[in-house]
């Protein structure tokens, strides 16, 4: 099969998968007793039972007694860009779900991309080093050290980093600012800026005049505001480090295995016999081939990070998509839960697709 048809087929398969996913999630949400669904409105917003029922049925459009019609209407609206409304009491956003995703998703993407860049920068040289000396002391130490990052809960690692490096209180190097109460980031103009208190040292966030991407790092640059740019970088350090250490082990394991695999290949022996210096062999012949399978994990890592950064987002009060998912699920915001689920599903399927295509491009032996 040609690559074109392969891609086309995979894209067509996405649609039934996503629809199946929405049906499954809808069924799960529908199975929740109605009393539970309206309970947040009664207890936290002080509405009467009848009023709460009215909110859920008429404003949200969720009819417990008519699941088929509710779902079909949702599906129709989904394709016209109306992803429903959320009225969470605990969730940090009220309004159209699609806007919430638009605001929260870029923050998580920024976090994931930062973590991938830093972890690649670390794991390629380290992986090359330990992969060319398998089973040496350095190799074993490197493996255990990277494994530790994978084997500890993300939030606990965040605790440790805060304990060691947090500004003013850190016991090792008290220089890195962290957190900030996430809820403070919500300010009157309706824009969310993650993890930044409304005002820092007399610089209000509203110094910025436009928020085209909802990512402070980029918005501040577009506004030419260096103060907020440095703040954005500072507050990114600890979350990115936490995520980086978490994915390092997976990357290192792959690069190391690839190195070990290709170091015994015939072409490496040929290069050695020709008298090519060992350094050049490792760089040109071994590492290049070892990195091909690594590309495949990378896509899946990004997909995993988008969904798996929840705990880190919570520790640092970082407004990402995981934060939105958990809070809206606790609030039983049906449409918000459906919306974020769809986003996760699409991200996962697309990541898989991109990985396959990139792999076919990099390794000419693979044909579809």
């Amino acid at each position, binding site marked *: 099969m040609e690559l074109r048809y392969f891609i086309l087929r995979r894209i067509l398969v996405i649609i039934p998968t996503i629809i199946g996913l929405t049906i499954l999630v809808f069924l799960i949400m529908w199975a929740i007793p109605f009393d539970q669904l309206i309970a947040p409105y009664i207890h936290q917003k002080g509405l009467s039972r009848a009023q709460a029922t009215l909110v859920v049925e008429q404003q949200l459009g969720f009819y417990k007694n008519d699941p088929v019609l509710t779902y079909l209407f949702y599906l129709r609206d989904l394709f016209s860009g109306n992803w429903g409304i959320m009225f969470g009491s605990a969730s940090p956003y009220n309004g159209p779900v699609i806007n919430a995703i638009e605001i929260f998703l870029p923050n998580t993407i920024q976090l994931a991309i930062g973590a991938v860049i830093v972890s690649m920068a670390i794991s390629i040289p380290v992986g090359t080093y330990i992969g060319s000396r398998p089973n040496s002391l350095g190799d074993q130490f490197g493996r255990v050290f990277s494994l530790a990052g994978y084997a500890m809960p993300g939030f606990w690692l965040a605790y440790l980093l805060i304990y060691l490096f947090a500004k003013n*209180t850190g016991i090792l190097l008290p220089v890195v600012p962290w957190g900030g109460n996430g809820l403070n980031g919500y300010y009157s103009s309706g824009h969310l800026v993650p993890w930044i208190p409304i005002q820092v040292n007399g610089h209000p966030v509203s110094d910025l005049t436009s928020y085209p991407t909802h990512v402070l790092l980029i918005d501040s640059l577009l506004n030419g505001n260096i103060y907020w740019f440095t703040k954005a970088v500072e507050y990114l350090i600890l979350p990115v480090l936490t995520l980086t250490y978490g994915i390092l082990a997976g990357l290192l394991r792959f690069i190391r295995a690839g190195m070990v695999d290709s170091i015994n290949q015939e072409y490496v022996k040929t290069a050695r016999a020709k008298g090519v210096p060992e350094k050049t062999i490792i760089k040109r012949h071994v590492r290049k081939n070892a990195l091909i399978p690594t590309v495949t994990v990378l896509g899946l890592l990004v997909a995993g990070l988008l969904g798996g950064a929840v705990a880190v987002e919570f520790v640092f009060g970082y407004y990402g998509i995981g934060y939105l998912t*958990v809070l809206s699920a606790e609030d039983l915001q049906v449409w918000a839960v459906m919306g974020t689920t769809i986003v996760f599903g699409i991200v996962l399927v697309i990541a898989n697709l991109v990985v396959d295509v990139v792999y076919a491009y990099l390794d000419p032996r693979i044909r579809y």
Partner: protein
Amino acid sequence: MVDVDAFKTEIAPPRKIHPKVEEMKTTGKLFLTNKLALVGFTITSFYFILAILDAIYPQYLGVANDSTYLSWVPGGTPTTIQPSQLLSPSLTPAGGWMFILGTTFYNMPIFPAMLAALKFDLGYSLAIVMIGGGIGVVIGVISGYMGGIVDEVMMRVTDIFFSVPFLVLAIAFLFVFGHVLSSVVYALIIIWWPIYARLTRGQALSTKAMNYVESARAAGSSKLRNIFVHVLPNVLSPVYVQFSLDLGTIVLIFSTLDFLGIVNGNPNVPELGSLIVAQGNGLSWLIAGYWWPAIIPGIFLLIFTISINLMGDGLRDVLDPKLRR
């Protein structure tokens, strides 16, 4: 004249060793040469023995009924305490050997609480991996062997389950089945089987083309027999590896759920993550310099997950013929 008989020796008939046993012996030998895997295996076994001992003889290591933390609370009634009231770890604690690692929320001794939590964590993660893994393996092997439309449908369903965000499912299950730990366990089982289904399917695809399966089919072996007698036993080695790694992963997931405050309605069910979080005080106590409530259970958990990962890596090296040296 040479006495021929003197040179005759008794030749023992070749001992019949089952090929499976032979295979296991080689595997075991290879496994033992990998130092890191051996260390991992030893420590993991130690944790399991600890948990089993604590379950069998609760009167020595734990208390008879430690299904909640409350049985460890001095005086029996939980009270919130100031961090300055926490006892720090010391080699000669005032309250007896139980207090050797200090105290945490409710002024509860950390050491026995950790053992109780370990027992729960290991028990639940074993149950989840076994049930979820079992379902996944059966689905995967059938899907891989049958191929065609059955395979396509089963794999699309697997894809759907694969992309359900776990946290959403766990939270929804808490509302559907009530705020108890078992709701989270159901959610985890539902999330866990797709990994095994994919893993087994891939293996089954290559195994069903093997000559011995072909000949079994030619000899008139039924589909069912082929799947479960000829294919299934030969696709399991990557499953064992995944199994061992997942035991650690599930404990990590439990602790994350605890941190997010959604594992159950009762914060007093022993669980290593809830010890680290210390009812939301872990981080603030840590920053204030009271490090032990968050750090000690964390290290206890970390040592377990590192060892089980080392063991799993070692198993992978040994069971995967491509990686065998």
